[in-house]
């Protein structure tokens, strides 16, 4: 293992994050606060409790997931797309590193940034609603695994993308709808039965359900199913990336 290379990539990427720390943190804090004002206070006050939890508190896990998933994908996809775009990727390809080290550096940094933002949003939430976390260890496990798996997905998108438009395409057309329809702002049990069935094909449902269980002990799907779903998703991402580097798809002629 070329650990020095992994560390170099990781710190280089984190430096980019800290250079723009204000923008990086202000925007998620601001948008979360807006969600709390609109959904929690204005609309939420007219909504009865969901599964025995006030609506304002109920949406906290979903809100964190929404930001963490979006941030993971955009950080990781930009992280690898940018060197491709400006041509500095030649250096990665000619360096004595293997695919695992490159992924560890880029995905590790993207996941760390997303984790930071997730924690900031959680802290912000404490100012608006009363939350107790029933299973803090599991909460961390779900949060970290989500950061990693969606950063892997972002990395794949970044390698696939041939333009900035394509870079936005997958998050916009697939991920945002999946997250919004994944029960970020409602319980799956609130949907008509037919839509409940459809929802079970949405992988994000398992993540949000598991994460919400870690907070409140209530879930749409069994906790082990959630865990398997996210573990499977992570492994799938790793497998795709392994294939990309083996074949040189989109990066090496």
């Amino acid at each position, binding site marked *: 293992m*070329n650990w*020095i*290379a992994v*560390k*170099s*990539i990781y710190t*280089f990427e984190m*430096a980019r994050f800290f*250079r723009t720390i204000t923008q990086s943190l202000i925007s998620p804090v601001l948008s979360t606060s807006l969600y709390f004002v609109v959904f929690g206070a204005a609309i939420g006050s007219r909504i009865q409790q969901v599964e025995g939890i006030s609506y304002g508190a109920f949406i906290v896990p979903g809100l964190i997931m929404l930001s963490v998933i979006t941030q993971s994908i955009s950080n990781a996809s930009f992280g690898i797309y*940018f*060197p491709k775009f*400006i*041509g*500095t990727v*030649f*250096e*990665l*390809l*000619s*360096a*004595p*590193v293997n695919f695992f080290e490159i992924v560890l550096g880029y995905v590790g940094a993207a996941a760390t940034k997303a984790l930071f933002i997730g924690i900031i949003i959680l802290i912000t939430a404490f100012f608006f609603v009363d939350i107790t976390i029933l299973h803090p260890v599991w909460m961390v496990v779900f949060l970290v695994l989500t950061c990693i798996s969606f950063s892997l997905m972002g990395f794949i998108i970044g390698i696939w993308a041939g333009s900035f438009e394509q870079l936005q395409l997958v998050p916009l057309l697939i991920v945002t709808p999946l997250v919004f329809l994944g029960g970020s702002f409602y319980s799956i049990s609130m949907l008509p039965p037919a839509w409940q069935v459809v929802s079970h094909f949405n992988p994000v449902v398992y993540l949000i359900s598991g994460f919400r269980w870690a907070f409140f002990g209530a879930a749409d799907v069994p906790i082990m199913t959630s865990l398997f779903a996210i573990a499977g998703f992570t492994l799938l991402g790793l497998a795709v990336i392994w294939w990309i580097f083996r074949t*040189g798809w989109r990066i*090496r*002629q």
Partner: protein
Amino acid sequence: MPDIVKITNLRKAYAGGFEALKGVNLTIEQGEILALLGPNGAGKTTLISTICGITTATDGSVAVGGHDTVKDYRKARSMIGLVPQEINLEPFEKVISTVAFSRGLFGKPKNDAAIEKILRQLSLWDKKDNQIRELSGGMKRRVLIAKALAHEPRVLFLDEPTAGVDVELRRDMWGIVAGLKADGVTIILTTHYIEEAEAIADRIGIIAEGELLLVEDKDKLMARMGKKQLVVQLTKPIDALPVSLASDSLALSDDGAALIYTYDTRAERTGITKLLSDVSNAGLVLADIETKQSSLEDIFVDLIKEGAA
């Protein structure tokens, strides 16, 4: 001198079927400067990219310092530095951090003294805290070289280091290359400026359409293929060559004011003495005499023509 790079039967065909390298064999000696000369699209960049791991070879092998660049890529690549043709740099990074990043990426532990030495050598130390986007084009090229040298490679590939660079900067670059050679770095550079190869290379390889046409010591190449011209200026222009002077190697200039005699410097007899006596016997009066050494450019053009024929 021991061999540091050994290229064996290297082939590269792109997905579209285009064959960029058609079986290249080349051995590069430690400490030399080899210039790869060829027109655009000859395969120079493909050759370098394949050695450095940016493109994968279709067939054949490359060993650097005895390490295969595919099987033993970590050891092989650690010895190589690459300066690409395009200025590929992150605009918002500081000079020093991008150079330090390159060192780390190649697995070398942090060493501020080594980085400082490289930046000073390239006159970049004053600019170390500047963002890349604030630098001039010439400075950016220096940053690319600094990045390539950051892990102290033994072999440096320079892909068209002076393409689109003004004359002063080009001479500057040649100075840098000479300095690196003095430090024991083996340098392979591609260029389509013949003047450049002539000025700094020890050996010259000529590449066209994916094939290495020849590799030879620069001086030997110049001597072997070098022809000289003797230009005899006449006091009065003439309409045609006198019959007594008619020969394949003698021509009259367009304005009729000069005789141009082409001869081989390495031939047993150059025929100059005979020519001059023939000229005076023909009643022509000489105004001036000069000789011209044919340049590498002429040699190059001849070779490419032969290859095409």
